[in-house]
């Protein structure tokens, strides 16, 4: 009976019902998300208050919130909070930019040149296999404790990820598209800018998502090797004082920064790659 009713209903009605279903689902998801947070934070707070879990090591949500509030209202031991965030963001963004520009440039060049890629591939593989965060120590010695050593650490982490993706992206370009462009009269420059780079762009964009997170890691690790300001330094000095709440508050700040950056990159991706069918980002873990 209901099937008959559906068949006779006009299209606009069907669309409205689809939209209503989607909204309802959306509400359910949001509600469950909030519930998860409440259960998680509630049990954390409760177990530490009851003394089942040692508050000294694990802190507790109310204390972390209080610490964040103190930082916001009265500033941190290192100075105002916004300045710490600003310093870390500056290092991260600069490192991200330097690393990804170099990564794209080298990836596209080597990907398009057999000889160069054959010559350099063992060195790049070797460089990729060392745990690159330790280079932060090297940069702290060679570049000093100012912003340069942090930017360099962030950049080197970003570089390899972007490089490999750009390289692969260039290698995977559809031979047919290249043949077509050449038949249509494209010279080498046009081939690079209009076929190879756009085609590699979806690979590159995919790598930018992970690599912004890596840039943040690089900046924070760089700060651990020695700094006077920044969120990493904030965490580091809290750790020295056995101040678990301070460590958690710092981590929370980093997570917030990473989330904002992620959404900015997704927006950039949707602008740059609008020729692809829109992927549903809703169900993805953001």
């Amino acid at each position, binding site marked *: 009976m209901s099937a008959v009713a559906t068949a006779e209903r006009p299209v606009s009605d069907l669309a409205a019902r689809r939209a209503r279903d989607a909204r309802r689902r959306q509400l359910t998801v949001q509600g469950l998300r909030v519930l998860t947070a409440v259960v998680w934070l509630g049990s954390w707070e409760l177990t530490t208050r009851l003394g089942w879990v040692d508050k000294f090591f694990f802190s507790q949500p109310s204390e972390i919130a209080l610490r964040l509030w103190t930082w916001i209202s009265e500033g941190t031991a290192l100075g105002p909070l916004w300045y710490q965030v600003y310093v870390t963001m500056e290092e991260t963004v600069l490192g991200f930019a330097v690393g990804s520009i170099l990564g794209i440039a080298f990836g596209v060049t080597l990907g398009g040149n057999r000889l160069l890629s054959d010559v350099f591939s063992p060195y790049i593989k070797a460089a990729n296999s060392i745990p690159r965060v330790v280079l932060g120590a090297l940069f702290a010695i060679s570049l000093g404790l100012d912003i340069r050593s942090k930017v360099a650490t962030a950049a080197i982490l970003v570089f390899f990820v972007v490089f490999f993706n750009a390289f692969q992206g260039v290698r995977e370009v559809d031979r*047919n598209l290249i043949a077509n462009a050449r038949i249509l009269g*494209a010279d080498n420059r046009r081939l690079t800018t209009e076929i190879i780079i756009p085609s590699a762009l979806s690979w590159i964009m995919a790598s930018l998502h992970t690599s912004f997170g890596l840039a943040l890691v690089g900046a924070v690790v760089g700060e651990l090797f020695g700094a006077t300001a920044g969120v990493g330094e904030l965490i580091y000095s809290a750790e020295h004082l056995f101040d678990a709440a301070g460590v958690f508050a710092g981590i929370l700040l980093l997570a917030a920064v990473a989330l904002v950056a992620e959404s900015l990159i997704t927006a950039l991706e949707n602008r740059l790659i609008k020729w692809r069918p829109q992927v549903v980002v809703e169900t993805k873990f953001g």
Partner: protein
Amino acid sequence: MAPAISLRGVTKRFLTPSGGVYTALHDVDLAVEPGEFCAVVGPTGCGKSTTLALISGLEPPSEGEVQVLGKPVSGIADGIGYVFQSDAVFPWKTVLENVAAGPRYHGAANREARDRARDWISRVGLAGFEDRYPYQLSGGMRKRVALAQSLINGPRILLMDEPFSALDVQTRSLMENELLALWSASSASVVFVTHDLEEAISLSDRVFVLTAGPGTVKSNYKVDLPRPRNVAEIRFQPRFAEIYEELWSDLRDEVLVSYERQKRSGAA
């Protein structure tokens, strides 16, 4: 008059991934007159696409000589249009940008290229779709984009590799008629690859039948049906049936050889 396209004693060998040598074409002789519409038919894998790649200059011959417009082919020459067997429109360009690519690559100003592209887009029946991306088009529409993209450069040689094989029967004869109209308004020589004998006869002046791989020209038929033609009706003419019968008896043997071979290599 010198032929527009000529292949003389052309052999093409490919290196297989296992290091062996595979002969795709063997001692092919083929000539296309200026302004002639030729079809190439043959069983699958016999080297039809390879023949087009040789003419376009995308692939060099292993032996023999390929000449286009009186000059030996060495690399990609100007004046060639190529509609590929698989989709080759650029997915990150809109329909307009795709069609305007050729003129832009030849140095036309952006504005002029776009104006000419608009004209061609409406000629292939896609007016109103200028700003769509290829993923938003149907397969048949993408083929039209490819056609406009090739024709806008005013090619003197047009190579087409099974351009309509993915289309339904109605759209297909519509596009075939359109193609004939566009071709007769130009002076281009066409090489049209297909595995459909009816399509080959109804469109062309001459049909080459290739043998099962390694391909060589088995026979070469002149199609003396009058023009202008309507492809939807021409197949009911008695002369069409005669030509079809002759060609089919040639092609059938090759298809059988090719089929037997595939079955055997599949069983091995």
